[in-house]
């Protein structure tokens, strides 16, 4: 102790020898890891810690968001005019599609009542932006700029204009962490649109590939089949596009097909995401925008970069009952008007 002349602030912990300190810290760390790993006992602690390091994330994100702001603000008049024209055209197309949707929905509701099956209520969405921060490089995780103050919950599904992106795994107070469907630890229940064949799509660790390892060799799967969420498991609402089957390999001697699919959403180019709540619309007022599920799917079917807030504002009249969407509605996703 007397040797530490410069060390004026003695604390009990500092006085211990480095070896003892190492052992203590390691035991403590192992305890923390065990608690964190099993049943997520430390989610509350992590939430507070993550909220306190949120400034670091904001700082890392700042140059990128400033860059976006600059490019938005100094866009030339010509670019704006062209963009405006394109958007107007898209709105026209979408409105035309929505007109047809309204009658289809009504028809669907009638058929549902005939079949005596329960009608499903609309979904509510919230737009979030992805922050420009990297997480663990070996995982496919993203940070979004909405947290529990905006009502984000763990397990919430996330889509973009083209399809399912992933789900929220941790809600911090001002931000949330989400896992993409291509993460190697992620699996989601899906079904083929063509024949309602149900299976599981598993992430591969490759942003452009999903794998479906649990289909037997005699399963009816073709290249080009569209896969959508089946709604089983409860995390993802049914009927949202997941991807397109790109490759079906049947190997002699193997019990299952090797199927790979390409995600519908451009997972490496997303900037904004939509978070979905599947709950009765009467409990819905907190979100930015309200949309029926079919409405959201309709915008999800559109060309890239169309998931703007205005597209999903309530365009379907309230008196038309929104119903559970059967995947058959999705059978002709690229159908022209």
């Amino acid at each position, binding site marked *: 102790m007397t040797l530490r002349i410069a060390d004026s602030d003695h604390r009990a912990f500092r006085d211990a020898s480095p070896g003892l*300190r190492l052992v203590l810290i390691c035991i403590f760390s192992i305890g923390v890891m065990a608690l964190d790993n099993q049943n997520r006992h430390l989610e509350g602690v992590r939430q507070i810690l993550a909220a306190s390091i949120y400034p670091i994330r904001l700082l890392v994100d700042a140059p990128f968001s400033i860059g976006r702001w600059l490019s938005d603000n100094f866009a030339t008049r010509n670019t704006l005019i062209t963009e405006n024209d394109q958007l107007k055209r898209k709105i026209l197309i979408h409105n035309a599609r929505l007109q047809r949707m309204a009658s289809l929905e009504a028809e669907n509701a009638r058929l549902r009542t005939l079949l005596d099956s329960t009608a499903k209520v609309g979904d509510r969405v919230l737009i979030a932006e992805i922050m420009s921060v990297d997480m663990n490089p070996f995982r496919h995780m993203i940070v979004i700029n909405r947290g529990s103050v905006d009502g984000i919950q763990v397990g919430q599904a996330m889509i973009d204009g083209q399809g399912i992106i992933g789900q929220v795994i941790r809600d911090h107070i001002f931000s949330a962490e989400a896992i993409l469907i291509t993460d190697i630890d992620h699996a989601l229940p899906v079904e083929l649109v063509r024949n309602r064949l149900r299976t599981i799509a598993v992430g591969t660790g490759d942003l452009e590939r999903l794998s479906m390892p649990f289909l037997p060799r005699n399963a009816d799967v073709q290249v080009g089949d569209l896969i959508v969420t089946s709604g089983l498991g409860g995390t993802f609402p049914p009927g949202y596009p997941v991807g397109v089957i790109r490759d079906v390999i049947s190997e002699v001697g193997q019990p299952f097909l090797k199927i790979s699919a390409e995600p519908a959403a451009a997972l490496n180019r997303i900037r904004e995401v939509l978070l979905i709540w599947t709950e009765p619309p009467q409990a819905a007022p907190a979100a930015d925008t309200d949309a029926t599920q079919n409405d959201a799917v309709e915008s999800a079917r559109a060309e890239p970069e169309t998931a703007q807030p205005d597209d999903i504002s309530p365009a379907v009249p309230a008196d038309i009952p929104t119903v559970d969407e059967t995947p058959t509605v999705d059978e002709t996703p690229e159908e022209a008007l």
Partner: protein
Amino acid sequence: MSRRRASRWPVWLVLLTTTALVSLPLPDVLTPFRPPWATLAIIYWIMMWPRVFGLGSAWLIGLILDILQGELLGQHAMAMTIVGYLTLRFHLQIRIFPLWQLTMTVFALLAIEAFVLFWIDGIVGNPMLGVARWTQVIFGAILWPPVMAIMDRIRESIETRDPTFI
């Protein structure tokens, strides 16, 4: 003591900056070349100012890394503490090493850290993909000389401003 605290904060700023570099977005192609900046910084400051930065600081920086990367709480913290302990234990020897020898030592320390992380991932059952985590170790060691040069300048500027410090 207040002066001591006053001299300490720029280094904390440096440590936090290097920690933040971990979450700087890089294209996927560059993942194998992303060096463990925070570990390099911790090794340097524990080696040079062992009385100011110790296992506690290493643990704290590791914990921040864990949260930033969304990993198991305590994983980086423990790996960082082990690296910090080894640095602290041998700081008098490695301080006077020639640069190439010091770089090799840093390589060994980074490899130990990567191994501890790899080990914990294995126990917990996290996916362990690819060789990127090992190439990061090599790249981190390659980057040690420039990192050390920059840190040296920061340290010298603090020490000349406040000679009673350390």
